């Protein structure tokens, strides 16, 4: 909202008591290589408030922002001595959740609905003889120039007498590429600028001012192929000569669109072309999985993935537990007679590379909506994560040749991603029960960020099958949740291509878990069971252009009045409103007679819901804006008009592999201490501990197991408080094997997920799996060959194990194209990665087995150690026997060898139980399907009868020493090696804290 003649007041709040945020930040900034000591640091929380009120009224209301027991209004006399003041705030248009809450607090305390704009920022007051270079380093580590602005003042400038304040005229808004708002202070892209004419930090207002005329333009398609190609790859040309950003439409797609509009007898509007681009994007249509590939006419998805599930459901007959697979936002299987359990894994890789915090929080909060939007609404009960990072920060990377757009370091990416998932999960009250972190240098430019959500949904909602939903002609199209802004434009098309210097910054967003929590509760806990809506779906990629058009398929048409969509600020173009992916929104189909009751409920829960149109049976997707027709095309063309492409694969030659396989030694240092401290195997306690894994009271097996707090390979939850039934969650991921043998990589990933679940007590005959493909360079026939081999193995092994796929997702271009520090071109492709996530259901949680050794004197056995190719038939028969052993409570502890070498597994079990072991092993070879157990000696006879081929490795003892063949370590050495690599992130366990002022 633009408000003129407003009073502007800046409220700065400092801490009265020890501010531990400042002391921890001081410690972490002190690790930068500064030329002189950073002596102290203070943090001031600031709110710039604009309102149609007197300054005195604003200040009085702002007292509500201060807890006077610990905080105070900052004035010169309550600040400690400092040399520099750095302010970090958001760029115009970036989601500012804190400001939103402050606005609410002010309005509520004023008890009147007055126009108020709030902008939050933080000021860091630093003391030290810091050089320009030091300050640049500090500012770089305090902010991300893609979303934040930074200013600096010396203490003299900060304390100088006030000059006449300048207000919003300071800030101009500029259109770069598609849309990018830039405030004057950050125009120099990440460099900071001294700003020295005001008392304190002075006032700066990062509001969005859009001045372009709003219009619907016609795009001329009567052009030659070269122009069509350019239009498809770079986007629509604006009057000012700039391009709007990638449509990711190839020439064949552009020609199909051209042909359609010749038939319609006109050119498309910009909004029609943008809408088709969203709908046809690789991100939305998964064309690489859908198109025919070599001899496989059905493509990979129908030919392998879905075909596997169909075959398994047939094989299982009346034991089939699938209920709703592949057709909805999440997959649903039977949990018990009354409930279904839903599961979905997503990735959010490209946004996380640019803004790790925003990308990750948007990812986790987004996948929560895949539960809320599944069936008539599934209640999110658990979050999962999986990170593929690099721990190699040596080499800087840039997006542009001029070296002005620097990529964030792998360390920053890791920290930001971990933070984003924490805030998203913790604030939503959804326990983050399990995850993994995998390190490989190929992820140094673009990480892989997997996020997943399990949900619980009654089989019957309001007397009807909860999986059945359909918008009906005449139903109102209702959008609820957050408002629409310029954030998240072209996210779907952006993630469908490689990342380079033209990747739009507007694709980056920051999630708002509280807005979502409010509507999630209102929908799942109230509106759903009242039967107030006929269909619901999530707004993700493509925003309402995808969600409305998708739901319109259920009834055969839609008509949208774009003017009714609530906006964050005026001035947006029609096409932007239609495709913006602004987060935290759901789309519902509501019968008109239910609207009033529904809207009253939403209002009372502080949720904004708006009718934006009507579902129809016209067969067309119609959009009007300002009295004009903005879009009017056949639904069938929109959804199915894209031509299929015949994909060809080529088996990689030895030479190709040598050129394209990252030159990284996969040879592990086999020394036990080195294995324990390997980043892929070491403790991730710092992540587990900062993720709330116990909210909702459903945890059975927590992320850290045993006295020694070792990260488990699985998690167990008991979703219903009044039932013993439990769900076991595990995963398989072997990207380092794709270039060696993609078929066996997939086989071992599936087997790994099953083996680790079974080791914890899962019933091998009640396990569903999910597939996430994160590929690279999917336009190369060699990579397509690997993809096809992987998918072929998915069919073969899922069918052989009887584990149906229930949901999946793919992300095909995890490549970075940019420049190194010399300005030389560099392409970094992530290892082609398949994540298999498994979900097993068991009847009695109390039979679950943890991995920690329990008692001295117990015997250690290795089961099912087989070398070479995965033998699904043999493994399945072993898993069934193991399940029966667990059911009769024969097993004191168990761990599969799915994710680690035998020697390491032994050491981790010892650390977890804080008990000694003495074992002798023959060669530690690559084995699949094996499980390592400890058994009460009184039960060992029964155990050996059940598993005659079990190899007795040794015994558990009280010695506090780990002895494996000739290698020997104290438990203490092993434990500290295991915990060492990320111990600097565990602030609460550090002995000394740096000085606090």
């Amino acid at each position, binding site marked *: 909202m633009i408000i003129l003649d407003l009073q502007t007041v800046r409220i700065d709040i400092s801490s009265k*008591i020890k*501010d*531990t*945020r400042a002391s*921890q*930040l001081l410690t972490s900034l002190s690790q930068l290589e500064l030329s002189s000591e950073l002596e102290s640091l203070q943090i001031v929380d600031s709110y710039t408030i604009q309102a149609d009120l007197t300054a005195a009224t604003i200040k009085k209301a702002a007292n509500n*922002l201060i*807890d006077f*027991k*610990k905080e105070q209004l900052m004035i010169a006399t309550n600040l400690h001595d400092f040399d520099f003041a750095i302010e970090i705030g958001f760029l115009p248009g970036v989601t500012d*959740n*804190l400001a*939103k*809450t*402050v606005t609410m*607090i002010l309005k*509520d305390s004023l008890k009147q609905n007055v126009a108020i704009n709030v902008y939050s920022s933080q000021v860091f007051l630093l003391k030290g003889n810091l050089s320009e270079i030091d300050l640049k380093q500090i500012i770089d580590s305090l902010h991300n120039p893609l979303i934040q602005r930074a200013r600096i003042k010396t203490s003299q400038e900060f304390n100088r007498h006030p000059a006449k304040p300048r207000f919003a005229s300071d800030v101009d808004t500029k259109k770069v590429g598609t849309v990018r708002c830039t405030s004057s202070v950050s125009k120099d892209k990440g460099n900071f600028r001294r700003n020295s004419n005001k008392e304190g930090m002075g006032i700066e207002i990062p509001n969005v001012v859009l001045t372009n005329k709003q219009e619907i333009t016609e795009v001329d398609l009567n052009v030659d192929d070269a122009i069509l190609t350019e239009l498809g790859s770079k986007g629509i040309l604006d009057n000012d000569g700039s391009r709007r950003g990638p449509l990711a439409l190839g020439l064949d797609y552009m020609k199909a669109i051209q042909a359609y509009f010749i038939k319609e007898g006109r050119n498309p509007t910009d909004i029609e072309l943008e809408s088709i681009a969203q709908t046809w994007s690789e991100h939305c249509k998964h064309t690489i999985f859908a198109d025919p590939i070599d001899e496989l006419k059905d493509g990979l998805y129908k030919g392998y993935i879905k075909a596997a599930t169909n075959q398994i459901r047939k094989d299982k007959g009346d034991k089939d537990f699938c209920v709703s697979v592949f057709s909805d936002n999440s997959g649903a299987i039977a949990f018990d007679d009354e409930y279904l359990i839903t599961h979905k894994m997503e990735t959010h890789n490209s946004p996380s590379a640019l803004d790790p915090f925003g990308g990750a929080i948007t990812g986790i909060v987004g996948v929560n909506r895949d539960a809320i939007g599944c069936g008539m609404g599934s209640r999110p009960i658990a979050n999962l994560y999986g990170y593929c990072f690099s721990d190699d920060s040596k080499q800087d990377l840039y997006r542009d040749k001029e070296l002005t757009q620097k990529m964030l370091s792998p360390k920053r990416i890791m920290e930001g991603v971990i933070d984003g998932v*924490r805030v998203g999960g*913790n*604030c*939503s*009250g959804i326990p983050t029960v399990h995850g993994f972190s995998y390190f490989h240098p190929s992820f140094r430019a673009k990480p892989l960020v997997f996020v997943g959500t399990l949900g619980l949904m009654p089989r019957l909602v309001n007397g009807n099958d909860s999986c059945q939903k359909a918008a009906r002609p005449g139903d109102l199209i209702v959008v609820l949740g957050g408002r629409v802004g310029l954030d998240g434009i072209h996210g779907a098309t952006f993630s469908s291509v490689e990342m380079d210097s033209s990747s739009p910054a507007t694709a980056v967003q920051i999630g708002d*878990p*509280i807005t979502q*929590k*409010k509507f999630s*509760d209102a929908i799942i806990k109230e509106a759903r069971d009242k039967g107030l809506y006929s269909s619901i779906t999530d707004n993700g990629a493509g925003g309402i252009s995808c969600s409305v058009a998708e739901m319109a398929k259920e009834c055969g048409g839609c008509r949208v009045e774009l003017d009714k969509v609530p906006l964050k600020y005026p001035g947006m173009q029609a096409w932007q409103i239609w495709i913006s992916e602004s987060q935290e929104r759901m789309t519902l189909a509501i019968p008109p007679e239910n609207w009033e009751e529904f809207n009253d409920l939403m209002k*009372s*829960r*502080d949720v904004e819901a708006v009718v934006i149109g009507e579902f129809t049976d016209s067969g067309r997707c119609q959009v009007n804006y300002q009295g004009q027709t903005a879009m009017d095309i056949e639904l069938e063309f929109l959804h199915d008009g894209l031509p299929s492409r015949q994909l060809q694969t080529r088996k990689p030659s030895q030479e190709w592999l040598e050129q394209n396989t990252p030159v990284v030694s996969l040879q592990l240092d086999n020394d036990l201490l080195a294995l324990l401290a390997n980043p892929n195997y070491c403790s991730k306690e710092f992540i587990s*501990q*900062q*993720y*709330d894994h*116990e*909210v*909702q*009271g459903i*945890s*059975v097996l*927590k992320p850290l*197991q*045993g006295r020694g*707090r070792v990260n488990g390979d699985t998690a167990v939850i*008991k979703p219903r*408080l009044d039932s013993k039934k439990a769900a076991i969650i595990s995963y398989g991921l072997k990207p380092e094997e794709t270039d060696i043998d993609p078929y066996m990589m997939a086989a071992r990933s599936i087997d790994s997920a099953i083996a680790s679940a079974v080791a914890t007590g899962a019933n091998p005959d009640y396990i569903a799996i999910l597939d996430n493909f994160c590929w690279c360079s999917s336009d190369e026939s060699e990579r397509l060959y690997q993809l096809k081999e992987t998918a072929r193995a998915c069919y073969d092994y899922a069918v052989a194990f009887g584990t149906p796929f229930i949901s999946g997702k793919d992300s095909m271009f995890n490549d970075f194209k940019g420049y190194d520090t010399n300005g030389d071109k560099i392409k970094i492709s992530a290892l082609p990665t398949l994540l298999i996530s498994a979900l097993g259901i068991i009847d009695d*949680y*109390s039979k*679950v*087995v*943890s991995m*920690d050794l*329990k*008692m001295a004197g117990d015997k250690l056995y290795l089961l099912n150690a087989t070398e070479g190719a995965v033998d699904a038939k043999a493994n399945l028969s072993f898993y069934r026997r193991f399940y029966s052993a667990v059911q009769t*409570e024969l097993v*004191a502890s168990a761990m599969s060898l799915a994710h680690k070498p035998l020697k390491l597994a032994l050491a981790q079990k010892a650390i977890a139980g804080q008990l000694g072991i003495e074992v002798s092993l023959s060669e530690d070879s690559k084995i699949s399907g094996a499980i390592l157990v400890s058994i*009460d000696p009184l039960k060992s006879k029964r155990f050996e009868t059940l598993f005659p081929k079990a190899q007795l490795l040794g015994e558990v003892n009280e010695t506090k020493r780990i002895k494996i063949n000739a290698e020997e370590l104290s438990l203490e050495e092993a434990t500290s090696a295991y915990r060492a690599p990320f111990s600097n992130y565990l*602030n*609460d366990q550090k002995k000394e*804290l740096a000085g606090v002022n």
Partner: protein
Amino acid sequence: MVTALIFSGYGINCEEETKRAFELAGAKADIVHLNDLIAEPSRLKDYQIAAFPGGFSFGDDTGSGKAYANMIKNHLLKEIKAFVARDTLTIGICNGFQVLTSLGLLKGTLTHNTSAQFIDRWVDLKVSSDSPWLKGIESMSLPVAHGEGRYVKDQDVPVALQYTDAEISNHFDYPANPNGSDDDIAAVLSDDGRILGMMPHPERAIEFHHLPHWTFLKEKASRESMALPDNGPGLSLFENAVEYFN
């Protein structure tokens, strides 16, 4: 039947398990959205127990519990004061505790942990004062999950629970105090003992499988032919509250 009102809305997120805990203890518990109570404040009169559950009301923006407490101050303060003036019990757990200190119903304040990080783990607690909530309890182990749980004293206050070294911290080799609270304070009381504010989560410790080392305890019990407890340690707190009115 003893009646408990459980606050919800705006990012409170532990209301379901808190309701379950009260129900297991024998109370009739209702989850009521803050806006519904603001619309009809007299509903408070129907209840003997008020519970402010854990969560992230307003995302902890401007400081945990502050915005939710402001709404109560602006719309419900009179009724809340009348409620606590009656012979009622009130509990604030985690975010609920932060709401109660922000409201001024409990002394002191809560701020960022010394680590400046969110932490979810179990702690041991010893009971330090008498209260209807704590009758018959000397010590207990419960989980904490918070980023702003460091209690800062501003005056003498009846301390309900203090972090201590006992079974759980020995088992897992954890330091006793997870957040740097003054005097290891985990929970405090109003002067009359009827209002309890606590950072640990008793509602997440009402069943045996909630214990972080239950698989070890189960194996130990089986070797020693001992029976396992049905419940977790947190339930007694809710039972005490119900017992107070019976």
